[in-house]
């Protein structure tokens, strides 16, 4: 396992009286896939939002590649190599599927308003590069055939794939996926699982939230379990599957 790229220390978040995340710490190493699971309302999404700087933590800090990122602007994270998807989809509805993903290539481009306005040669190069990167990513998740459709007309399941394509198109080091498989059918799930496992081989790391235990067991190297904002367990899939606390709070007796 590589060196640690994401370090989370004592992260805590309160919303008024609700303690959504309570003192969570863990690390992610290079090339690792880590899953966060836990009952509804356990604080998983809140944890993601703090890691990706969408909301400010009440306490604690996040370091990415050794840098403290909690004080940074959201947009600087992509350049550092961290991207994410959203649980309640945030696709650009007013654009085609292709354009959605092309936006994800931003950090690789140099176009500014003025160069664009005067259509300098660099702009064309940028566009071409962006186009090829985006098509590749769409190919990877299997959306290439629909790349010219308006994103909002895609069925729910495919919109999820679109978000994944947009998150991986810029070759980030770490991708946060919030319930990537929700709403996908089994064959899509298998496909995405394969895509992610392949990317891991190339050195990408993933942190993901998922309720589909089959996927979690298949993909995760390590699982973190949350309940009521607390980390109640951490370990390999095998360990977690057998952990009575986890079974009681989350899995129930029988695993589907």
């Amino acid at each position, binding site marked *: 396992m590589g060196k640690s790229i994401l370090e989370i220390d004592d992260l805590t978040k309160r919303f008024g009286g609700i303690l959504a995340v309570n003192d969570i710490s863990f690390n992610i190493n290079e090339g690792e896939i880590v899953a966060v699971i836990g009952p*509804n309302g*356990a604080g998983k*999404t809140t944890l993601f939002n703090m890691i990706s700087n969408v909301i400010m933590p009440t306490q604690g800090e996040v370091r990415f590649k050794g840098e403290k990122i909690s004080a940074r602007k959201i947009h600087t994270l992509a350049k550092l190599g961290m991207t994410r998807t959203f649980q309640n989809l945030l696709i650009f509805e007013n654009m085609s599927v292709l354009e959605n993903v092309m936006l994800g290539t931003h950090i690789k481009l140099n176009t500014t308003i003025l160069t664009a306005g005067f259509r300098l040669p660099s702009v064309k190069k940028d566009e071409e590069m962006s186009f090829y990167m985006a098509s590749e990513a769409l190919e990877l998740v299997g959306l290439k055939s629909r790349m010219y459709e308006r994103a909002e007309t895609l*069925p*729910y399941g495919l919109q999820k794939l679109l978000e994944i394509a947009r998150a991986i198109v810029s070759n980030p080091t770490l991708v946060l996926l919030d319930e990537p498989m929700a709403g996908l*059918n*089994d064959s899509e799930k298998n496909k995405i699982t394969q895509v992610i496992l392949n990317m891991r081989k190339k050195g990408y790391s993933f942190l993901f939230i998922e*309720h589909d235990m089959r996927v979690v067991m298949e993909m995760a190297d390590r699982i973190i379990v949350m309940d009521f904002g607390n980390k109640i367990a951490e370990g390999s899939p095998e360990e977690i599957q057998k952990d009575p606390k986890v079974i009681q709070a989350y*899995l129930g007796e029988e695993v589907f």
Partner: protein
Amino acid sequence: MLEVKELVTYHGSIRTIDSISFHVNTGEIVSIIGANGVGKSTLLGTLAGLYRPSQGEILLDGESIFSLPAYKIVRQGISLVPQGRQIFSSLSVRKNLVLGMYHNYQKTKKNLMKSKIDKMLEIFPSLKKHLNNMGGNLSGGEQQMLAIARGLMSDPKIILLDEPSIGLAPIIVREILEILQSVRDEFGMTVILVEQNVKAALKISDRAYIMDKGKFVLSGHSYELINNPMIQSTYLGLKT
């Protein structure tokens, strides 16, 4: 009780629902299963009146509800729990629930309403502490629970559930499916269920339809389908 004949719905020029016929009996749980984008949500949306069908017939207890607007269909006793939750994000959880019984609010007594809300909180205890929190602040799964609870609040004759298990913890999924069975058993409520979680869906449903590209390609009793090798390989991820 619900009878659909040769239903056609378009999205622009695309024939998303391509002449579908089926029927559902009172007290049945029927599942509709299919890959992403085959038109399941569109079918439920059409039944609930969100999309306007262009051909066919929809009969509820023998009466046509074809092409009625959504708000009138609810009054006929069909309630849809849509995909993507669609809760009222800036209203409190309590108000979300109260609005669930909007169409028969006038007829409902105050204390009955209270007991109904209490019942929902019993089913979904995690909503309890959020009763005055705004719907949109809830976690994904909590919102899903709220959406289902809101659908149940209207005491529908038929409830249409569009992938209710999305975002729910496994333990809750199981609970909800059990609840559906028990509501059916207790009140004779009819359930039409769209699910990606095929195994679970087939387990609780009486019958199921398999949908592909806007058509029903296969149908039958759940226990038959679950043993069908085609289903097993395509939808249950089992290698045969």
